């Protein structure tokens, strides 16, 4: 992914050039490769790189959508406004809390689910099918299901609570329920990624540990989990980034009221409720930077092998 790696990759095909004819073939292969990738690259760059650059430009302006003619340059003013605002820090704190708790719970639950799918004596297919439903279902649908379940008077879960309690209107309870909804929806995805990692653990190694008298927990902690580390890191990376962008569940469950909004909710509100394109863009850019920092942390510090980042095995 880094430039030097790209250089060696580029140099590789021509290096073993044995005859002129062969390098002509290699040249054609290159041309075809670039041509085939070009449309995808053009689309991806045009729809992400250009807008993010434009977002940076917008974030440096005072830009109220109600008065577009009065837009003017304010430098880093919007960033100053966001970073000194308690709303941003509150939203960031809620987002980090939701991300950390839900990913931690999902890891444990997902691992358990993966072990069930891996070792179940019967009904494996049924379990896998069932587990795909939370993955596939529209997040908004699931969120409404949870919302109504917790709405006093309507919901079967609210009916179990003491009379007069409305969990979605209390900050901490609502955050707990948002985490619950998030965990329900995404644990299956985590479990499937971990299941694929589990399938790569050689059966002989586990059986050898069993013969040596290791208990189930010893086998899990000392043999299976260390061998699964790459798969676990990839799953954690994907899920952490995904959880950090949480929007749909909060929008439906609480709308971000009572200090339950995430940074994405804050950005959305600034853009579409306050109609402040400058501040909204500044928040967008800050969220982008947070996500980049998380990805950097995972890849550089924990050594998560970025999928596809490993050497090509052709």
């Amino acid at each position: 992914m880094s430039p030097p790696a790209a250089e060696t990759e580029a140099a590789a095909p021509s290096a073993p050039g044995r005859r002129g004819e062969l390098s002509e073939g290699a040249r054609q292969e290159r041309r075809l490769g670039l041509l085939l990738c070009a449309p995808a690259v053009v689309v991806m760059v045009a729809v992400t790189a250009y807008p993010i650059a434009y977002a940076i430009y917008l974030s440096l302006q005072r830009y109220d959508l109600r008065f577009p003619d009065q837009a003017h340059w304010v430098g880093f003013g919007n960033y100053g406004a966001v970073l000194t605002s308690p709303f941003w820090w509150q939203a960031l704190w809620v987002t980090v809390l939701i991300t950390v708790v839900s990913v931690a719970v999902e890891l444990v639950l997902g691992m358990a689910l993966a072990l069930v799918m891996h070792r179940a004596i019967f009904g494996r297919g049924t379990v896998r099918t069932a587990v795909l439903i939370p993955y596939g279902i529209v997040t908004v649908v699931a969120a409404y299901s949870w919302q109504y379940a917790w709405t006093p008077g309507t919901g079967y879960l609210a009916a179990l609570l003491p009379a007069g309690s409305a969990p979605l209107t209390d900050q901490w309870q609502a955050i707990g329920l948002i985490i619950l909804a998030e965990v329900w929806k995404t644990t299956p995805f985590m479990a499937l990624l971990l299941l694929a990692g589990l399938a790569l653990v050689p059966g002989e190694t586990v059986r050898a540990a069993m013969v040596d008298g290791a208990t189930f927990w010893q086998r899990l902690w000392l043999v299976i989990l260390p061998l699964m580390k790459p798969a676990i890191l990839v799953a954690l990376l994907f899920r952490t980034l995904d959880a950090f962008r949480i929007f749909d569940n909060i929008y439906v469950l609480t709308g971000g009221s009572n200090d339950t909004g995430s940074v994405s909710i804050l950005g959305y509100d600034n853009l579409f409720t306050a109609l402040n394109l400058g501040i909204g863009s500044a928040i967008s850019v800050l969220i982008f930077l947070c996500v980049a920092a998380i990805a950097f942390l995972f890849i550089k510090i924990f050594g998560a092998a970025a999928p596809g980042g490993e050497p090509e095995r052709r």
Partner: protein
Amino acid sequence: MMSHRGRTLTGWGVVNLLVILYALIPVCWIAALSFKDPSTLTDGNFIPREWTWANYRGIFQTSEFTRALVNSIGIAVIATTIAVVLGTMAAYAVARLRFPGKRVLIGMSLLIAMFPPISLVSPLFNIERVLGIFDTWAGLIIPYMTFSLPLAIYTLSAFFREIPWDLEKAAKMDGATPAQAFRLVIAPLAAPGVVTTAILVFIFCWNDFLFAISLTSTTAARTVPAAIAFFTGSSQFQQPTGSIAAAAVVITVPIVIFVLLFQRRIVAGLTAGAVKG
């Protein structure tokens, strides 16, 4: 011995049942809600006391929902088609050809897979208004196909690496024309991967909510997830609960059908991209 085996089987039965209940209860709840008579909507009972199709009849009578359903299907199908075609081309190159910049492509896809969509909402909102595609199908198709391209490229290139491409040469040696070799040998081998990817991409587009509420303002392009959020308990309904539940069930049905039909492939597709890269 028998009793031990019996206990193990029972144990697994209980575990399996727990997993299935975990997955299905929230889905069954929204379905149950959609069949409740308006008068019993707020009784807090899990199973409807009185079953009715009224909520479904209600939503299919409003253009608000039917229009959104058409939008959802049209936008998801077009975005999926484009993403799969472009993804297939790129994935073929990634899996089979040597060319400079392959790593750049893979790195870029990864970057976009991690991209926070909210960061694109504000610039796209403005760009689309200037270009005049705000609140149109194209306005949603463009971000959907972009964000699903990394998924398509990863999944497809993982599948393509597994194809025994030598068969193509063998077929040609046996006298097949290149077109025949492709149609009779390679296409059938590649088809499962392409179908799986198409399903994953479709689910992705079908699920989106943030772009759908941000880049639309009328029913012209609003998809069902966004339309649901704007349902109001207007004249026919006091509370939109019943209509929301019914609409939710309608858009869940295709997903459940895909999952039931393609369970094995969806699992393979989801994990292939992430694990094998």
